């Protein structure tokens, strides 16, 4: 795959930077990184930005990550874009809810760059 356009959704700007760094450490060449602080901002960002992968927190103000994943399914331009949840919520029910809503991967915080590599690369058609 060529350079990747990523949407990173987290209410912590520090965490957004760490996720971006982890993507680069995974060997993913980033063409563009779009940041959003919650699900509502992310939906707006998707209106004007095509992306190849979305990495999304769950616990966020305004619109949480689970609701965002449900609503992404209704955004024509984002259909088929893989979503990976990165969250402190580690319960089985959260994993099931996220995957049922359309997420393709689930990473629990705290996380290592290797975990990002393992979950994200296959979704981009690369071997981890």
């Amino acid at each position, binding site marked *: 795959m060529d350079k990747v356009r990523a949407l990173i959704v987290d*209410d*912590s*700007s*520090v*965490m957004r*930077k*760490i996720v971006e*760094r982890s993507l680069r450490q995974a060997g993913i060449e980033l063409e563009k990184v779009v940041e959003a602080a919650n699900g509502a901002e992310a939906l707006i960002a998707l209106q004007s930005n095509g992306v190849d992968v979305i990495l999304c927190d769950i*616990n*966020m*103000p305004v619109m949480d990550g689970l609701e965002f994943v449900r609503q992404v399914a209704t955004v024509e331009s984002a259909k088929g874009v893989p979503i990976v949840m990165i*969250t*402190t*919520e*580690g*319960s*089985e*029910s959260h994993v099931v809810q996220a995957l049922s809503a359309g997420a393709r991967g689930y990473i*629990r*915080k*705290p*996380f*290592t760059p290797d975990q990002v590599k393992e979950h994200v690369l296959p979704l981009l058609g690369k071997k981890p």
Partner: protein
Amino acid sequence: MSAAGGLAERSHEENWLPILELAIQEVFEIMLGSKVKTVAPSEHAANTEFTAMVGLAGALCGILTVCCDGKTACQIATRMLGDAAGSEEQAADALGEICNMITGNFKNKLAGTDEQCMLSVPSVISGGKYSFRSLAEGGSIETVLLFEGAPVFVRLKLHR
């Protein structure tokens, strides 16, 4: 007896302190690349220049706080971000995320709790002149860790 009350009352009997300390150590090692050791709370005076808080609701009700001085909060942000860190806002954001991850990691280690317990988004107070009062008194677990030689105070206050 409510589920929340039952869990809070059992906390000391089940000795949750080692679980909390393990959750803290994992977060610092994985996210900051820093091996921290815990020390007795009585060895250090609490510094609350920065206080991060995450609330728990459901089977476990209460609040987890992480307190440290401003310099330490900046060092935490720098370790998380590398050279990019610098502002007070980033220090507060980083401490809030550390608090969030410690709370989530602790919750996930308690068998039977993670499915029935929700976390709030983190809040951070800058400035030490405040008093903290919980309306529903319960047990508490407290520990202090040394991060680059400076104390970081972690307290889990449970509601009955």
